[in-house]
């Protein structure tokens, strides 16, 4: 028994956590991520990779439904917890301590496993009598792809339970192979969204967080770590001068990354000529928008009147995303969505002009 217990203790020291963020709770998510890093735990890449599911913020009914289905995909031993928006370090720590204790509790895990087995066998038997749809999954149907070949279409929703994805957003993609042929974006629980007002340093940190997501998607681990480091410093430290130095350093580092530029250049190119109605700060390709994210963070932090941080409304951003991802492969589509820096909670119900004259400028 001692060995089993020791194995479990070791295992829990490497817990992988899937964090699901409800719109508006990104500060709580940052707190969770930092606590996970401090413990040497990991952020999970998918439900199958996760031992624990942490919901931050208060998810609406639609998001709750998705979280529930993701919870069903955790292999087990598993544990879940929820953390409200307004949070401090202690509450995050106690929540994760509880997760660790639950994962270590053998009886609880055995009970959980037993309950699940009954559940899955019911599900399987119900649907298997349909002939052309094994287990209730309809077969894919064909359609012409961009090279004129008829190919199967797969319907894959991206988000909301997906790492490095804007909270509360769903992009329903139609894929052929890995090429997006059609996309439809929406916000879950739209009516429940309440705008969140952030301090300047927090808004700069939000930009860094979005930058970190983009760098994570590009696969550059050290770049992401650098952006996360700046983000955490900005959250902790409202001091403008120190933050500016960090941001400038990050900017220089990004500019030196040749391979990153090579890999992001030319994707999701939005030109003023094609679409004059789109906000100008979205123009350019993913790489230009990435560089602009750092500049925006700097402008937010310093409250620079000359370069006010522009905002586009969420419906505008979603429309741009829908249009840009068509014809791209899944990797490029993800990069485009990340580069648009969509944040439902800080922008949703605010028209662009209202946001600019917020008092903290």
């Amino acid at each position, binding site marked *: 028994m001692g060995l089993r217990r020791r194995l479990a203790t070791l295992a829990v020291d490497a817990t992988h956590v899937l964090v699901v963020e409800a719109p508006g709770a990104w500060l709580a998510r940052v707190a969770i991520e930092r606590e996970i890093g401090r413990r040497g735990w990991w952020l999970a890449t998918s439900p199958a990779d996760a031992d624990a599911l942490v919901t931050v913020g208060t998810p609406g009914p639609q998001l709750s439904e998705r979280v529930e289905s993701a919870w069903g995909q955790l292999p087990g031993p598993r544990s879940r917890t929820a953390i409200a928006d307004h949070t401090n370090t202690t509450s995050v720590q106690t929540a994760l301590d509880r997760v660790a204790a639950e994962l270590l509790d053998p009886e609880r895990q055995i009970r959980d496993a037993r309950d699940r087995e009954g559940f899955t066998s019911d599900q399987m038997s119900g649907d298997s009598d349909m002939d052309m749809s*094994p*287990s209730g*999954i309809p*077969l*894919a149907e*064909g359609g012409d792809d*961009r*090279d*004129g*070949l008829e*190919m*199967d279409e797969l319907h894959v929703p991206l988000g909301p339970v997906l790492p490095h994805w804007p909270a509360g957003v769903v992009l329903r993609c139609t894929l052929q*192979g890995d*090429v997006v042929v059609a996309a439809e974006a929406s916000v879950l629980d739209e009516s429940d969204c309440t705008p969140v007002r952030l301090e300047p340093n927090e808004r700069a940190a939000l930009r860094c967080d979005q930058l970190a997501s983009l760098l994570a998607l590009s696969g550059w681990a050290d770049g992401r770590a650098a952006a996360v480091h700046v983000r955490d410093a900005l959250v902790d430290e409202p001091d403008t001068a120190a933050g500016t130095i960090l941001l400038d350093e990050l900017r220089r580092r990004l500019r030196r990354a040749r391979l990153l530029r*090579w890999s992001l250049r*030319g994707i999701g*190119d939005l*030109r003023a000529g*094609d679409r004059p109605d789109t906000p100008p700060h979205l123009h350019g390709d993913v790489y230009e928008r990435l560089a602009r994210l750092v500049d925006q963070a700097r402008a937010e932090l310093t409250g620079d009147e000359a370069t006010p941080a522009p905002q586009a409304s969420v419906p505008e951003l979603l429309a741009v995303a829908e249009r840009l991802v068509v*014809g*791209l492969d899944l990797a490029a589509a993800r990069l485009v969505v990340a580069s648009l820096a969509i944040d439902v909670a800080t922008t949703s119900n605010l028209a662009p002009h209202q946001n600019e004259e917020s008092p903290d400028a």
Partner: protein
Amino acid sequence: MFVDVVFWVMTVVAVVMGAAVFVVDSMARATYALALSFVAVGVQVLLLHQDYVGVIVILMMVMEMAVMAVYMVMFMGMNPALMPMSMVHDKRKALAAASVVFLTLAAGALLIPWPTRRGQPSSDTTRALGEALMGSKMLVMTVVSPVMVATIVAGIVIASKRSRYDRLGDDLRGAADHSADPQRGGVGR
């Protein structure tokens, strides 16, 4: 002894997997059954002391079947789900023809009084193959090589819709309109 055991195991694998190609319910399984059949034959060619040819058979066929599986999925539209599938015509005639061919060949293999071996294998069969290809059988090499090149070109011409002229313009200097190019490539043309 060891050689015989391996030979018989590989015989069973080659035949069973070969038959499985036309029996199993999934395109992926059919393709990789064929790959396994080829790997088994590749091992047997190794046992017959043609090291280079044997390893090349394994290398080529695994690679080819990996690509073939993608074609299978692409053109046949199968979910990974196992769907019973039977897409055959003239099954009975085909079976009869195959049986007749097998019996004829088998009878030939067993009944013909094969001559005894002439000559001795060289001590390094791979070197011998290389010297043959680069020496007395040079003609084979010089014929096969252009045929291969022609195959590559012909394959691309037949299969692709957009040619390099569509991508890079009539003078091949680079596309006028990059935004219309869904695949811009990595060397910045």
